[in-house]
C-alpha cells in the first residue's frame, strides 16, 4: 500500500523531528560555550577547494562559482559558507571572482553577502555588480551564458556547488574544455554521476553541508555536523528496527501476505497514523 500524503504532523512526526533536531541544538550550544568542539573529519573536497583556489591564483586566472538554482533555503546557506571562503581568498589576492545568477532573490542575497565579505576583508572597492551577472532565470539561457563567461574569462577554477538539473553536465564541460580545475557538489542525486565524470572532485550529498561547516571555521557549524551524525544514528536505529519488525511480521503473516513492507509495517503506522477520512476506502 502507498503511504498517504502528509498534511500535518502526528505525534510520531513530532517525536521524530525532536530526535533529529535536538541533538544538534545541544551540540551547537556546547560548541558555542567551547565545552565540546567535535572533531570533524577533514573531507578531501575541502582540500580540493583550497587547491583549486591556489592554482587559479597562481595562474592569474579568475574563479567562477555557480550555485545552480537552489532558491533561498538551507542548501544555499550551506553553499555560501564555501563561497565566503573562496571570496575571502579572491579579495585577499585581488583575484577576479564571478558568481552568475539565475534567481533575483538569490542574487540579492549573494551580492549582499559578497559585498560584506569584501568589506570585512578590507577591499570594498573590489566588489562590483559584474561579479554577480544575472543570466536570466531560464535553465538553458543561464547555461549558455555560463559557458560563454567561463570561456571568455578563461577561468582557472570553477566551483559548481549547489542544486542542479539537466544543465549540470553543460556547466561542468564548459570548465573542463578550458582546463580549469573544478570542484563540484550537489544534493541532486541524478546529477552526481555527471559531475563526477566531468569535474576533478565532487562533494556528494551532505558532504556539501559538511564542507561548508569545515571551511567556515565556526564552532556552531562543527556542532551541527555532530548533530547531523547523531540524527543519522537515530535514523539507522529506526531502519534496523523497521527491517527487523517487517521480517518478523512477514514470517508471522506468511500465509496471508507474502511480503509485509513499508507502510504496512505497524511501526510506520505508529509514526504516522492514517488520516481518518481515508479509512473507509481500504
Amino acid at each position, binding site marked *: 500500500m*502507498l503511504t*498517504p*500524503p502528509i498534511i500535518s504532523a502526528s505525534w510520531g512526526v513530532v517525536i521524530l523531528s525532536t530526535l533529529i533536531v535536538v541533538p544538534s541544538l545541544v551540540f551547537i550550544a556546547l560548541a558555542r560555550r567551547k565545552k565540546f568542539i567535535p572533531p570533524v573529519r577533514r573531507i578531501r573536497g575541502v582540500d580540493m577547494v583550497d587547491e583549486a583556489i591556489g592554482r587559479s591564483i597562481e595562474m592569474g586566472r579568475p574563479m567562477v562559482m555557480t550555485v545552480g538554482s537552489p532558491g533561498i533555503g538551507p542548501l544555499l546557506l550551506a553553499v555560501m559558507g564555501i563561497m565566503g571562503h573562496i571570496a575571502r581568498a579572491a579579495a585577499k589576492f585581488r583575484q577576479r571572482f564571478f558568481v552568475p545568477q539565475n534567481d533575483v532573490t538569490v542574487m540579492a542575497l549573494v551580492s549582499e553577502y559578497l559585498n560584506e565579505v569584501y568589506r570585512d576583508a578590507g577591499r570594498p572597492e573590489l566588489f562590483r555588480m559584474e561579479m554577480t551577472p544575472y543570466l536570466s532565470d531560464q535553465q538553458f539561457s543561464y547555461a549558455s551564458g555560463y559557458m560563454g563567461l567561463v570561456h571568455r574569462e578563461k577561468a582557472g577554477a570553477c566551483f559548481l556547488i549547489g542544486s542542479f538539473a539537466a544543465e549540470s553536465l553543460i556547466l561542468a564541460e564548459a570548465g573542463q574544455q578550458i582546463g580549469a580545475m573544478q570542484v563540484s557538489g550537489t544534493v541532486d542525486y541524478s546529477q552526481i554521476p555527471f559531475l563526477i565524470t566531468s569535474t576533478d572532485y565532487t562533494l556528494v550529498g551532505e558532504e556539501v553541508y559538511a564542507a561548508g561547516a569545515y571551511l567556515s571555521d565556526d564552532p556552531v557549524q562543527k556542532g551541527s555536523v555532530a548533530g547531523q551524525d547523531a540524527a543519522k544514528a537515530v535514523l539507522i536505529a529506526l531502519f534496523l528496527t523497521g527491517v527487523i519488525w517487517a521480517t518478523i511480521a512477514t514470517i508471522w503473516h506468511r500465509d496471508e501476505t507474502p511480503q509485509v513492507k513499508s507502510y504496512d509495517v505497524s511501526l510506520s503506522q505508529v509514526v504516522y497514523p492514517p488520516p481518518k477520512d481515508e479509512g473507509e476506502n481500504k
Partner: protein
Amino acid sequence: MTPDTPRRTVLDFIANLDRRFVYFLTAVVMLIPIVSKLEFRPPMMLQAEKLFNYVEDLAREPNKRVVMISLDWGPQTAPELRPATLAFLKHVMYRRIPVVVLTLLNDGRGFTEVVPPEAAKVVEDARRAEGVPANEIEVLYGRDWINLGYRFGFSDAIRGMAGNLIEYVRSDTKRKPLEEYEIMRNVKGADSFSLMVEVTGSVGIFPAWLQWFKQTRTMRFALGCTSISVPESYTYLDSGQLVGLFEGITGAAAYERLLSERLGLSPSRDTFQAMTTQMFGQGLIVLLVIVGNVAYFMLQRRKARESTT
C-alpha cells in the same frame, strides 16, 4: 623500431581523441539514419506488450469504458514522450475506445490539440484502406475523444477529477459544457475509467495520480516515461500498480511495431527513426568506451614494457 611507430601514434590518437573529433563523430553517426531515412525494426518490449494486451482486453468488453490519458510533458521532453502518446492514442482510437485527453502542465496545452488529431488521421486512413463503411470511418470529437486541456493545480485537480469529473472540469477546450458530449455520458469520477495513462518526464506527478486517482479493482494505471525515470517506474511495476510501461522512445517504437504487426496500422516513421537514431548514438558511446579502454590498456602495457626494458 620503425614499423612500431605508426601503430603507436594510432593508439595514442585513439586513447586521447580530441573532444571536437568526438563531437563530430556523434553528429555524423546520428545524422546517418536521419538523412538516409534508415529504420530498424524495434525489438519487442515486455512492458509495452503487456499494455497492448491490456488494451486489447478492454476492447473486447461489450460496454467500452472510457480511458484517460494525461500529457504531462512540454517541448523539452516531447522528443521522448510524443511517440508514446501517439502510439497509445492510435491504438485506443482504432479499437473505438473513448479517450479523454488532458494535461496538468501549462507547456502541454498545445500538444493536447495536435497529437490526438494526428492519431485520428492515421486511424481514419487505416479504416479507409480496410474498406470500413464511410459513416464509420471518422474518429469523432465528442464521441471518440475529448480534450479537457490544461487543468491547473496538480494534486488538487486530480482530487477534483477523481471525485466528480464533470462537475469539477465543467467544460472542454471548446468551452462547451461537458454534459453535451456523448463520451461523457457514463463518466462520473475515477471509477468510470478503465485505464489511466500518464505520460510524463517530471518526477512526482505520477505518484500524485496514484494517490489521488484511486486505483479500484477495475481502474488500472499505465505510464509513459522518459528513460531517466525508468528506474523509478520499475518500483511501481514491481508492486503491480502499473499494467504496462512505455520506456522512452524504445517502448513507443515497440508499441508501434505491435500496432503495425497485429492491427495493420501504418507505423509512425518519426518514432522508428528516432529509435534508430538513438540506437546509433548509444551504440557509439558503448563502442567509444570500449575502444578507449582497450587503447588505454594497451598503452599502459606498452609503457610498462618500455620501462622494464
